[in-house]
């Protein structure tokens, strides 16, 4: 046996600490090896056991989430989840965070976030058809917030526009809790045939392990470890751990992989994401119960003099690892050369159950694969419940209904996102039916369905209301899932499954771990009640800077299906319609945007979510959309009922005269499970609601150029639009 370049004990212990391994984790690694580690082996342990790769703090909780349904083809554990959508087709999707890199280097942090999630989806064999992004930034008054926003938006656009995948939706919130720790969560949806799903489990002793894509450099070494610690004042020194994105290489990689996937050459495929070559090779061989022998001299390298350790830990972008069937190397190489990408056989599958890494004639690592997963650390960290917020009590209206509406439509959390989406190509691909601002969820038709004579479309949304989660993590978790379900329902589509992106603070703090546990509990309840299982996800912990945690943000990416794209509705209010409100209105002002923006308070409990009512109301609304009774629909969310109506007016330019006389609780309360419907058959809507035991009431009618609120006054739609459109451009002036 070759002599391994083992580290001296003192040096090894010191490096283990630097790489983020806790002392007990390091002891466990030594026990697995039965000797001192090499540098390369120590690097592998530290990244595989990082929070980012091992989910060691979150795994015990995530198990509570429902992941199965008859339409779920692939659940969590693969690169992305897969659901059946009809016509023999399937949708593949996942959402992933790139929070830490986006704070350190906004443009490239966000760009590579998009690149990484795209790879997770096309790795499965799917052509990506839509990107979304859920963004959270700090106080908009701070120059640093604007600088980060500008960089993140440019980065997302720069990458997504170039690869030619439309960016069709997302969400943006601002709150000082994100000052030192913005959230950039990117979601990709792809489509493939149900019988052409590719996975990562590698099989076949002797099969070639092939590296394709861009060359390996020293960028991003220990990126996964960086994402698993809190931030401090010197975090900007970590800029070299942020990777640089090359969307052109990604575009070539998409086309080359899809071309190769159309053949029968591939046994298994995995992208090199976090922890790069380490996680991809360990996971592929581990999932297949195989061993793997890697020859690092064969790895395409961008820089000279790289060590095996550096190559194994590099997070250079736009790279994939594949296992091919024997004898298919030539076919595969021809395709990758055509697309001007690197192609190299860098190893073979073995039957040893071990990973061996050779470089320049030296055996740099020789370790068992199974314990990396089976003995990975798993923490049952202590949790502490968030105390319930006391009831809000009466809050008087200080400024009146119309003045409050003016303030709300211009508020950073509710103002038009046009400044952002005008930088994202939402149309490329030619299948975008409802783009940002047109409907509660983006609607993207499936080209493969059209080719077969069908008209299937996907409805896609991202949602979370972090202030609710902060006030009551369980209720907030329920609400995030329910709102995603509601936004899809409001287009007429049937919500099918979600991906979750759990952004929280330091899990070693019981309060934070308690937020996580409660949010998962709430999400699980909503997923079960709404038949809306989790098929993929990502956890981002340690979102703290200088000890201050972000608002807990379990971002939900929801996907629904509508069989006929022509039946999907948007939110733009047509002229000459009656408005009907579906759902119960209690006037719940706790944690509402009215409370924060008008009364200057951030307290009270969040609105409760009644999951049975949610389902009942939603199924009624969906039925009325699909049978053509409802012409436009918008859910009541941030800002409440009057903001929802105002948004419908602004989307079309048509005014509305409301009939209800009521106070600020009625107009701005954020009660859940509510929709505003525009219809020419109000009696039919009310009758259907009665039959379904769903509360519904006439709200008024559309027409004219003003929004008229009885007893409160009126405001022109033009004025509403001016207020709504002015905020972001003014904020971003000069950037």
């Amino acid at each position, binding site marked *: 046996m070759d002599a391994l370049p083992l580290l001296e004990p003192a040096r090894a212990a010191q490096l283990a600490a630097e790489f983020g391994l806790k002392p007990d984790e390091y002891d466990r690694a030594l026990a697995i090896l039965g000797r001192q580690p090499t540098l390369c082996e120590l690097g592998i342990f530290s990244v595989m056991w990082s929070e980012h790769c091992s989910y060691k703090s979150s795994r015990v909780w995530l198990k509570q989430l429902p992941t199965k349904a008859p339409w779920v083809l692939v659940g969590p554990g693969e690169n992305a989840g897969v659901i059946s959508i009809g016509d023999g087709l399937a949708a593949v999707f996942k959402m992933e965070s790139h929070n830490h890199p986006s704070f350190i280097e906004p443009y490239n942090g966000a760009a590579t976030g998009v690149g990484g999630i795209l790879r997770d989806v096309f790795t499965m064999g799917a052509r990506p058809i839509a990107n979304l992004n859920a963004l959270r930034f700090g106080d908009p008054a701070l120059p640093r917030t604007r600088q980060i926003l500008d960089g993140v938006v*440019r980065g997302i*656009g*720069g990458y997504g*526009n*170039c*690869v*030619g995948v439309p960016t069709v939706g997302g969400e943006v919130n601002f709150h000082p809790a994100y000052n030192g720790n913005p959230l950039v969560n990117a979601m990709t949806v792809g489509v493939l045939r149900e019988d052409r799903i590719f996975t990562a489990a590698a099989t076949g002793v002797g099969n070639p392990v092939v590296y394709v894509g861009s060359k390996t450099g020293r960028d991003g070494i220990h990126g996964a470890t960086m994402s698993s610690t809190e931030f401090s004042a010197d975090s900007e020194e970590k800029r070299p751990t942020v990777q640089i994105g*090359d*969307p*052109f*290489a990604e*575009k*070539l990689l998409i086309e080359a992989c899809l071309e190769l996937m159309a053949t029968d050459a591939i046994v298994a495929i995995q992208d090199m994401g976090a922890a790069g070559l380490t996680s991809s090779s360990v996971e592929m061989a581990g999932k297949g119960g195989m061993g793997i022998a890697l020859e690092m001299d064969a790895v395409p390298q961008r820089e000279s003099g790289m060590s095996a350790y550096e190559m194994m830990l590099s997070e250079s972008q736009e790279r994939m690892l594949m296992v091919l069937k024997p004898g298919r190397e030539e076919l595969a190489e021809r395709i990758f050369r*055509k*697309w*001007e990408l690197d192609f190299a056989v860098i190893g073979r599958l073995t039957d040893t159950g071990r990973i061996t890494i050779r470089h320049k004639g030296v055996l740099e690592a020789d370790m068992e694969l199974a314990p990396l997963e089976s003995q990975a650390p798993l923490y049952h960290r202590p949790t502490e419940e968030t105390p319930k917020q006391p009831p809000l009590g009466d809050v008087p209206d200080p400024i009146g209904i119309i003045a409050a509406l003016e303030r709300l439509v211009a508020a950073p959390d509710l103002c038009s996102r046009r400044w952002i*989406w*005008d*930088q*994202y*190509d*939402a*149309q*490329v*691909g*030619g*299948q*975008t*039916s409802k783009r940002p601002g047109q409907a509660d969820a983006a609607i993207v*038709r499936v*080209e493969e369905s059209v080719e077969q004579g069908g*008209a299937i479309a996907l409805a896609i949304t991202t949602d979370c209301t972090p202030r609710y989660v902060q006030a009551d993590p369980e209720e907030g978790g329920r609400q995030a899932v329910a709102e995603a379900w509601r936004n899809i329902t409001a287009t007429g589509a049937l919500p099918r499954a979600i991906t979750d992106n759990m952004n929280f603070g330091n899990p070693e703090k019981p309060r934070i771990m308690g937020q996580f546990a409660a949010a998962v509990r709430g999400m699980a309840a909503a997923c079960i009640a709404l038949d809306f299982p989790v098929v993929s996800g990502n956890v981002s912990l340690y979102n703290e800077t200088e000890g201050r945690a972000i608002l807990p943000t379990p971002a939900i990416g929801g996907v629904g299906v509508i069989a006929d*794209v*022509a039946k999907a509705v948007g939110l733009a209010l047509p002229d000459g319609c009656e408005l009907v409100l579906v759902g119960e209105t209690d006037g719940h002002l706790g944690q509402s945007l009215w409370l924060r923006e008008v009364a200057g308070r951030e307290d009270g409990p969040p609105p409760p979510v009644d999951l049975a009512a949610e389902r009942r109301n939603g199924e009624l609304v969906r039925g009325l959309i699909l049978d053509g009774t409802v012409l436009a629909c918008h859910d009541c969310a941030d800002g409440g009922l009057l903001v929802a109506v105002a948004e419908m007016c602004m989307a079309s330019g048509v005014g509305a005269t409301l009939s209800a006389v009521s106070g600020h609780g009625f107009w701005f309360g954020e009660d859940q499970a509510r929709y505003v419907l525009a219809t020419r058959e109000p009696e039919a809507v009310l009758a259907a609601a009665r039959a379904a035991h769903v509360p519904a009431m006439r709200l008024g009618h559309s027409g004219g150029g003003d929004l008229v609120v009885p007893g409160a006054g009126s405001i022109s739609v033009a004025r509403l639009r001016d207020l709504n459109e002015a905020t972001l451009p003014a904020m971003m002036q000069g950037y």
Partner: protein
Amino acid sequence: MKAAIVTFPGTNRERDMAIALRRASGQRPQMVWHREDALPAGLDLVVLPGGFSYGDYLRCGAMAAQSPIMAAVRAFAARGGHVLGVCNGFQMLCEAQLLPGALLRNASLRFLAMDCTMRVERADLAFTRHFRQGQEFRATMAHGDGNWFGDDDTTAMLEGEGRVVFRYADANLNGSRNAIAGICSANGRVLGLMPHPENCVDPLVGGEEGLPLFTSLAESLAAA
């Protein structure tokens, strides 16, 4: 109409273009890889589609203009063939000197992805005969470098010879000289424009205001 779409590394609107051509003509266009040195025989139309050829890492379209296939495209144009370049394709046509001027960075220095309104300045071309002269129509645009620039003489020549085919009608968002959105060659058979009419050919996805461009071509070139 027999059409071919030339694809380059980084092209990303070739499928959109194929859908539009097929919708108008009923025929699937042929895809031609940029490494080819000849076009298929008997073509009526060559399209250079949108995208980010070579990542736009050099000037947009500059690398693509040097591709092997471009010699064949030049020869096709010289023989009086019809060539359509959209967005990155327009940039390539300028870089290949099949059309005059250059496309600079948008005046706002930002990527612009939004609807725009174009006015038809020439409704007598094979590309535009299904539009009315002076008609205004909505199209989508998506580019970082769509700010057309020509020197005084070039601009005056294009205006004088009636070679401005499309002009931005309401807002000139990218800052193009004379609000120029699309121009043609002296014989009217090579057309370049920045906005994407191919994304406006279906009422269910994006509207169909751009469809007349493709039906014009299908009718004009059907019997050719």
